[in-house]
Each structure stands twice: as C-alpha cells, then as structure tokens.
C-alpha cells in the first residue's frame, strides 16, 4: 500500500549538506505490523515523516496505493493525512484547550466532505473502549501520560484510517504503561487488520512485531 522508491532526503546544515536518508527502498503491505528501528539520529523519524506525507523527499518517489505523491497538491496531501493515515506521537500532541472528546473529534473537523458517519458516537465508543469514558469532558493536562496516549490512539482511529503511524509511542511512558499501549496497537493489527508502522529505538518493542526494518545513518540494513 505504501512504496518508497530510491528516496533521498538532504538538508542544508552549517553550509554543508546533511544526508538524512540515502536511497531508501521500502514497501509496506496492507495489514503488516512493521517496526522501524534504529538509534537516535539514524533517520528513522525522517523516514516516518516521509511515510506520513508530512515531508517530501529530495529525490525519489513515494507511492500510496500506486499513486505518485509528487503529483499530488498540498490540499490533497492534507486530505490523505486526514483520511488515510492516523498519527500517534511520542509527546501525545493533544491540544490542551480541547476536551478529551473534542481532541478525538479534531480530525473530523477537517473532513470537508459530506459524511453519513456519526463521528460523535464513534468517538464515544473509542473513548469507552480505551477506558476513558468518565474522563471524556476532562482536559488532557488532567489525565496521566498513559491515558493521554490512549486518547491520541483514539484520535488516530476516528477517521478509520488504513495506516497507523506511531513515532516512539511508548517513549514518554513507564514500562508497564508502555506494554499496555503496545498491547493495544497489537490488537488493532491482529483483530482489525490495520496496517501499523511503529518507529522505536527499543529492541524489546521490536521483538513484539512481525517485521523489523533496521536503519542506521540513513540507510536500511
């Protein structure tokens, strides 16, 4: 479903050119649970941003369902991020001024097409499923890190995306809560057949997934 072909990413850095990604070729198939592993500075986050359509390659091409991303304009990219991809971040990235329920509903605000889906109902079901129903009208800074990450996962699921991208989802959590979050993601993959890509530097997490892509110095090894 996602294919990276000869993807390079270069940044200008102190007058020289820093190469973050070197000639990456990667295919992620539907229903796969993939982990991108590497030490910090290896380029794994840059790779995830490419897959998540937040960044554009300097060279090479990204295909989503065989569609060339370089042919797609900014509005269409936004629509793809909105409907096709669900993001989960290390720092949760919830908006503190919105309630839990409103945070989960935030992606639906940017869906400007007509939809028959009752997002309110779906959001409440997701919140209930993750054990946060009592907290639905609380604000993010009033709940724990593990709870915040579950809200973020609920937000990632609200548009029913095909692909979930998680960038160090357990990085800011203690090991027990981290395990719970991993269990949740594994369930989403196994029971709902969602495609999941998780970026991590933690080898114990990599052990739990079916496919591991290792990256060092911007290259897949």
């Amino acid at each position, binding site marked *: 479903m996602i294919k990276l072909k000869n993807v390079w990413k270069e940044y200008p850095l102190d007058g020289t050119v820093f190469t973050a990604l070197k000639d990456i070729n990667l295919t992620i198939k539907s229903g796969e649970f993939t982990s991108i592993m590497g030490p910090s500075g290896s380029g794994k986050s840059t790779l995830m*941003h490419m897959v*998540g359509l*937040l*960044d554009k390659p300097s060279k090479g091409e990204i295909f989503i369902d065989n569609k060339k991303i370089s042919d797609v304009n*900014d*509005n269409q990219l*936004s*629509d793809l*991020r*909105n*409907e096709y991809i669900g*993001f989960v*971040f290390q720092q949760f*990235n919830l*908006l503190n*001024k*919105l309630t839990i329920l*409103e945070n989960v*509903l*935030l*992606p639906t*605000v*940017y*869906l*400007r097409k007509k939809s028959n889906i009752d997002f309110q109902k779906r959001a409440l079901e997701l919140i209930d499923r993750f054990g946060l129903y009592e907290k639905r009208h609380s604000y993010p800074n009033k709940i724990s890190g593990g709870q915040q990450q579950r809200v973020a996962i609920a*937000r990632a699921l609200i*548009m029913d995306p095909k692909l979930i991208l998680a960038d160090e989802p357990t990085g800011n959590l203690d090991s027990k809560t981290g395990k719970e979050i991993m269990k949740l993601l594994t369930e989403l993959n196994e029971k709902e057949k969602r495609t999941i890509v998780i970026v991590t530097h933690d080898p114990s997490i990599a052990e739990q997934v079916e496919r591991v892509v290792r990256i060092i110095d911007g290259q897949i090894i």
Partner: protein
Amino acid sequence: MNYFAFIVKSALFNFSRSKGRTFLTSLGILIGVMAVVLLTAFGLGLKKYINDQFQSLGTNVIRIMPGKVLSGGSFNGSSIGSIRFDEKDVNNLKRIRNLESVAPIYTKSIAVDAGKKKEDATLYSTSAEIFNILNFNAQSGKIFDKTDVDKRNKIAVIGPKIADKLFGSGDLALGKNIKIDSQSFKVTGVLESKGGGGFGGPDLDALVFIPYKTGFVFNTDKKFFIITAKGKENISLDTVKQQIQTVLLKRYKEDEFSVLEQTEILKAVTSIFDVLNMVLVAIAAISLVVGGIGIMNIMYVTVTEKIKEIGIRRALGAKKNDILFQFLVEAVILSVFGGLLGLGLSFFIILLIQKIFPAYIDAQAVLLALGVSTLIGVVFGVFPAKQAADLSPIDAIRYE
C-alpha cells in the same frame, strides 16, 4: 461540534488564557473606533442643530444681501458688496405680487439695560412683517404692527431669554422700560422660545425687535444690510427669486447683490461642517490603523506560540486554508471585540454630553464602526495568518 465552533473555541480559549494581552490589544481598536464614532456624532449633531434652527425660521424665506455672497455653493467672504438697501428698494419689492411679506433688517450688537441688570443681545430694527417671515409668535403681550412702525413708537418685542434674565419671566417684562444706547423703549411683547443653545449663528431667543423707523435713531443713514422676504405658499421660489432679481436690476448691477434661499445658505453652512468633520474623522482613523498594527503584532506572537499546534493540526489533515482561516477569525474577533467596546463607550459618552452638546449617533455610524473594525481585523490579521498557513507541517510539528 462543527468546524466554525471549533475555530471560535480555539480563539476564545486563547483570549481567556491571556486576558491582559487581549484587552490591551483591543484597546487600540477601542480608542480608534471611539474617536471616529464620537467625532461623527459631534458632526452629525452640529449639522442637525443648524438644520433645525433653519427649519424653525421657515423654509420659503428669501434673503437679499449685497454682493455675491455665495459662489459655487460655498461662502465667498471677500466679495460682500458695498451697497446697502434703502426704503425705496423695500417698497419696490413689495409690489411683487408673489411675495407675501418683505422686511428690511438693520442689525447690531447691543447691551440691553433694565436699570439693575444688563444683558447682551442682537438688535433687529425691522418691519412688522418680520414676525410672519421668521415664524415668530408672542408668548406674552403682542408683536408690533405697521402702525407702530409708521408712528415710530418707542416699543420693543424681546426674546424670551432676554425677558427671563432681566425681569424673571415674560409676563413680568411686559410694560417695563429698557434702555438701548441710552434710548428708552417699552416692552410690549415677549416672543416664544425657538429653542437651541447658540452654536454657530445668533441666539434666536436673545433678539430684540424694534420698528425700523424708530430704529433710524441708530441707523442714521437709513440703509439696510439685509432684506428678508417670504414667497406665497404655492409659488415656486425660483419664480419669486427671478422677479426680485428683475426689480433690483433696475437700480443695481448684477454682481452687486444676491438673492438667496434659506436652503442655499443651509447647504453652504453644512458643507463647511462636512469638510471639517471629514478631516477630523480622517485624523481619528489614523488611530484605527495604529490599533490594527497592534493586532498584527500580537497575531505574529500568537502564531509563534502556536507553531506546534499548527503542526499537529496539519498532521491531522488541516489544509493551509483551514489554518489561515483559524488565525483570521482570531484577529477579527479581537478587532470586533475592541470595536464593540469602543462603540459601547461612545454611546455612554454621547448620552452624558447630550445635555450640553447636541451630539447624536445614527445606524450608519454604528455599521461603519463595526464594518471598519472587522476590516481592520482581516487586513492586519491576514499577514500573520498567511505566515502560519505557509509553515511546513514537518517544521511546525518538530518545533519545541
């Protein structure tokens, strides 16, 4: 929650978190809107006041003055002519059948002496017809008539303000003697009030009327500066003016006199106020621009503070225009908030000063104030909002 509610809630949250900053930013717009609204209110009030005064003097009044007083619709002070009208002109004009009344006026500033008290006033030495022309009626006693003029009776009909100040009331003034330039006059009538306070032009309640033939003691060369006349009800003023013109041209050259309608004078007076007011409002509008710059400044700060949030929203599917719109709405709310406060404060101030100054505000001024503050929000908000929208999603979300 729909799209718009989400965006407004974001903006309002921001304001509640930084109340002081929000208020100070709005203050710029508040002062600007207040300055514009108040100056407009003063201008409108003054214009209305002058209009009312002219209306109370009757609308089909014609004034005949020396020189070309009006040129191109505005006053032309330098060319007030040197001729003065005399009784012969008055008698010639009286032969025009379309004129209902003709009254010559000799006028001067005087001090009215009632023995114990003295009061400044404007003397009108004129014929009995003046009361019909200017719609003056007596509240006590009676106005003088043609016989009084011909007999050169030493009587005076005084304005209510003069009566009140010198004698306490109109009734008490009747039959009393007043002295003008050491000449003694008996008060035989006190006029009804015309109202108004005395902005621009003579106070209509502080006039002293005497028969013009009696007035020759002051007006020794028996000449008049103005002749007023009133056309008959159903005759067009243009026709009447034309006839007056024809009569006067027998004695004077075309550019030695003017025949003016009340409305022409009114237009000339109000056009002066219009220009003055426009200049003042334009100056006040500068403070609105300064207020707008304040909003732009604070919006740039807000955008910087929210870079991370912009990144998150972009990752969740917000388009550039969604971000642009979010910040524009915030700037407009800030600006309209200031505009509404300024408008409210203006209403309050106008209410307070209405007792001493005839200021008033109309719907047009209110709409203008709100329109302008919205426009300022959009104009000065669009640059920061554009900057926010053009941030690259990846740079924004990485921003700490």
